[in-house]
């Protein structure tokens, strides 16, 4: 009896010890991941985010049509979403189908084009999977330097398979807009654009914040005060009006791609102050910590201290800040494009797609224009949940250990 109890006690404590050992020898990344995993909403947000990122990257494969004007369906303008179904009054089928439609114009319709949905068996369009369609290319680089010899092109990989489609005609599961472009194809491409704008913007903001915040925090003193004054001033100016003023510089003749780059850069150039301030504050507090003093007394070089002690102490904070500032970039871009100062038509972004929805006509008749909004909210919320989860997980003094 006594033997067994001592036995279980020793095994328990052995297990305990192992757990403790694992805890104390775990790297910072492992610890953060352990804490992050316990946060259900952050984990869920993470999954949503991964799905959205992948659907953005693989948008050309997942969507049946080209999101630009060349992929439009001229016969189905402002068309309602076509939801694939398995059954209707004419019986069921194993393969999902949508209805065909007919456009007519006669004296009866006052010579306006009227679209009628045909629900009979013959005009069913069956959804096909892995159909051939418009070509798309991945990993294509085209570097155009001055001089012909320096031009350099990687052809990349070209595909033409799409996840789904119909044989004759078109399928628009989210409907079409006023020029007949497929809203589903545009939405997924817009996610891609928003992520790209956010990534470039966050990257530029990060580099500027690291340089300015790093200099202010490392040197301190007078330089710090001056840099803080400038940072605070830029923080005081309302950013959206400032974005608008900067975006108004773009000459009308610029291409959509150049516009895209400029807008991303502007977002980054205005987004740095908050991040710079955090980096500076962190550097200032960490610089005076005992472990830095200990390293100095042990004869470590400044480069070694910065690399091995200071940087690891706040990389996790920086990553968290970057994730948190991401949705702001996406939101700003959307707002800017929405008022017509941001991205322009051939480039798809949520703001571009929402440009025309304020008209009463759209509000009353074409509510499917709003479908992309839900994707957008999901994207921003996912970033916020993941950011919050990471912040809690990265905080070693947080409550949930």
């Amino acid at each position, binding site marked *: 009896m006594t033997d067994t109890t001592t036995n279980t006690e020793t095994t328990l404590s052995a297990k305990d010890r192992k757990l403790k050992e694992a805890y104390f020898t775990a790297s910072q990344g492992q610890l953060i991941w352990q804490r992050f995993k316990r946060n259900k909403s952050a984990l869920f947000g993470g999954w949503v985010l991964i799905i959205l990122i992948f659907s953005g990257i693989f948008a050309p494969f997942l969507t049946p049509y080209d999101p630009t004007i060349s992929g439009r369906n001229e016969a189905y303008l402002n068309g309602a979403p076509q939801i694939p179904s398995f059954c209707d009054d004419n019986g069921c089928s194993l393969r999902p189908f949508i209805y065909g439609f007919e456009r007519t114009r006669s004296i009866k319709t006052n010579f306006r084009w009227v679209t009628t949905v045909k629900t009979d068996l013959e005009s069913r369009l069956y959804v096909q999977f892995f159909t051939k369609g418009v070509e798309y290319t991945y990993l294509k680089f085209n570097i155009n330097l001055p001089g012909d010899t320096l031009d350099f092109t990687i052809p990349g990989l070209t595909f033409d398979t799409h996840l789904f489609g119909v044989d004759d005609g078109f399928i628009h599961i989210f409907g079409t807009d006023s020029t007949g472009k497929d809203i589903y194809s545009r939405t997924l491409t817009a996610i891609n654009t928003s992520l790209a704008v956010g990534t470039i913007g966050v990257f530029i903001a990060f580099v500027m914040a690291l340089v300015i915040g790093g200099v202010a925090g490392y040197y301190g003193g007078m330089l710090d005060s001056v840099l803080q*004054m*400038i940072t*605070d*001033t*830029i*923080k*005081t*100016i*309302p*950013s*959206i*009006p*400032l974005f*608008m*003023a*900067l*975006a*108004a*510089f773009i*000459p009308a003749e610029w291409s959509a791609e150049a516009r895209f780059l400029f807008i991303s850069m502007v977002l980054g150039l205005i987004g740095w102050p908050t991040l710079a301030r955090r980096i500076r504050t962190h550097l200032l507090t960490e610089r005076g910590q005992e472990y830095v003093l200990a390293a100095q007394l042990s004869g470590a070089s400044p480069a070694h201290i910065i690399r091995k002690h200071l940087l690891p102490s706040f990389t996790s904070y920086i990553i968290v800040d970057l994730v948190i500032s991401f*949705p702001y970039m996406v*939101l700003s871009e*959307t*707002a800017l494009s*929405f*008022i*017509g*100062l941001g991205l322009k038509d051939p480039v798809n972004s949520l703001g571009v797609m*929402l440009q025309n*929805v*304020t008209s*009463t006509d759209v*509000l*009353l008749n074409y*509510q499917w224009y*709003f479908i992309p*909004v839900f994707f*957008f*909210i999901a994207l*921003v*919320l996912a970033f*916020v*949940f993941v950011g919050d989860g990471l912040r809690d997980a990265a905080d070693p003094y947080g409550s949930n250990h």
Partner: protein
Amino acid sequence: MLQFLKFAAIRAFLAILTLVLVSFIVFSLMELVPGDCAERYVAFKNSQGSIITPADIQVERVRLGLDKPYVQRWGKWIINAFQGEFGDSCILRLNISQLLGQKFWLSLGLCLSALLLAYAIAIPVGIMAATSKNAVLNNSLRLVSYLGLALPNFLLALMIMLFSTIYFGDSLTGLFSKEFRDAAWSWARVRDFLGHAWLPVFILGWSATAFAIQTVRALMSDEIGKLYVTAAAARGVSGRNLLMRYPARHALSPIINSLGFDLNRIFNELPIVALILTLTEAGSLLIDALATSNDQQLAGAIIFMLTAAIVAINFVTDIILALTDPRVRSGIMG
């Protein structure tokens, strides 16, 4: 008292310094735009049928003082700006101060009401959330504050417009009814204005409210756990009396401190919300100035005035904090 005046003077000096820096940024932005006022005036005259030579442009430049060096023109601009005088808009050929005048104060009024609304909701709700152990309440508040971030005001405005158009057949736009738009201020006009203004105020205050609830809740739950609260509870203070006399007073200072940034957030939403709700009397002037006519003088004046409002709020909150918060006060008095 003397120390307090010194503190106020330093704060005022810093506020003015900030504004000078802001004016430099704004003025540089205005200057960076290709084409100056002289060219625009002359282009306008050209479109009216007169024949223009490069010499005419030069004469116009001298008349407008555009031949002077950059720093001198900036100095003139900033001195005028502090007197509330921004010159003429090159495109509209109208005096900017007159053009903005009432519209600016109306916009500022809307934004300040939104700020007021945000805290009128956030303070009681935030305190309630911090003290309550009710999981449903806490989770739903968390959801609301997340939505405050993810559903930016302009999307909220669009959604409200969508639903009100479908269910009420009225898109709820504008600040005045047709018959009051150009009328003089009267009691009926004020009532009409209030009937229209609640929606923009609500929408402008939406994300600020969500953020404010989070802030108040976090501050209160931090303070409630502290020892001085336990000590007060041990002395027999309890209930609302305990909350209001101890943690709430401590949590108030950071809130006052953040008012300026909340106003900044609301200003960010203003132009876009104004565009959606077609508030031609407020806010959307900035979009007109930038998106349609590229009018830098007007845009610069608006950005400068918005920033000045934020700097003013920051200054006032600093002074209020110094007066009300003993911790700050003792910091100043040495």
